[in-house]
């Protein structure tokens, strides 16, 4: 509990310090043909420089320090769901300049327009949860593997 609270706090501080809570800065990274701002790439590099050794270190642990087991993501194949989901996300990201973390992190000090984005995002998430996997078009249900 306390570790999750601290992790969320560090995450939010990192997003704020690096100015990823400013959509114009994120769009400056995505605008490679304009006045390109590479800051977002350095944010990811800084995060990877710390997180990659930590994940490697965790391979030597039988269990996490405060929980029974590691919730390892299922390493499935790259399927249509992943591809289409990532593309839809990228279009929305490029339209506004917000991804989920920065939008939530700035909720406390941003304007009502940020709240509108977060509300729309939560509706999008709820819409996904409401649609049962069986009702997806077959292109989303099956892996590309034959």
């Amino acid at each position, binding site marked *: *509990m306390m570790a*999750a*609270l601290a*992790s*969320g706090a560090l995450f*939010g*501080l*990192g997003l*704020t310090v*690096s*100015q990823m*809570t400013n*959509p114009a800065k994120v769009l400056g990274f995505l605008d490679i*043909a304009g006045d390109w701002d590479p*800051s977002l790439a350095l*944010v990811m590099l*800084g995060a990877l*420089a710390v997180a*990659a050794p*930590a*994940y490697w*270190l*965790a391979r030597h*642990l039988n*269990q*996490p*320090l405060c*929980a029974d087991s*590691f*919730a390892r*993501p299922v390493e499935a194949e*790259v399927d249509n*769901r992943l*591809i289409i*989901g990532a*593309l*839809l*996300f990228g*279009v*929305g*990201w*490029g*339209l506004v*300049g917000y*991804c*989920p*973390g920065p939008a939530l*992190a*700035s909720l*406390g*000090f*941003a304007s009502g327009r940020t709240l509108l*984005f977060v509300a*729309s*995002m939560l*509706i*999008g*998430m*709820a819409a*996904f949860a409401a649609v049962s996997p069986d009702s997806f078009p077959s292109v989303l249900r099956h892996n590309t593997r034959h």
Partner: protein
Amino acid sequence: MHNFTPVSAILGGGLIGLAASLLWLANGRIAGVSGIVGNLGSARAGDIAWRVAFIAGLVAAPLGYVSLAGVPPIQLDASTPAIIVGGLLVGFGTRLGSGCTSGHGVCGLARLSPRSIVATCLFMAAGFVTVFLLRHLMEG
């Protein structure tokens, strides 16, 4: 590149990496914001508290920080319809694709997950193309 802020970017990135490391080493959980939020509704009883705690820290810590350091610039130029459509796409897309910039882009890349490497390349590419179309073709 006159908006480039390398020092704050690396410092902030380091904090994000620390957050992801802590959640994995202590709780055995991936620090993916879309998954932590999106699975809140369907999570089992014992799986809810840490999600709420993470989100509380994510929202509260920046608020505390800006009350001391001042509010950083937030420039949101998108029109209201674009904000709504973008929000819906980000919400639905991150759930369909099982992750966003944090889960795939930071945690997944740090774990060298092939799925996350593909997802990160795709959402970056889609973001580049979207901004290019909006800024350089449609506004010509």
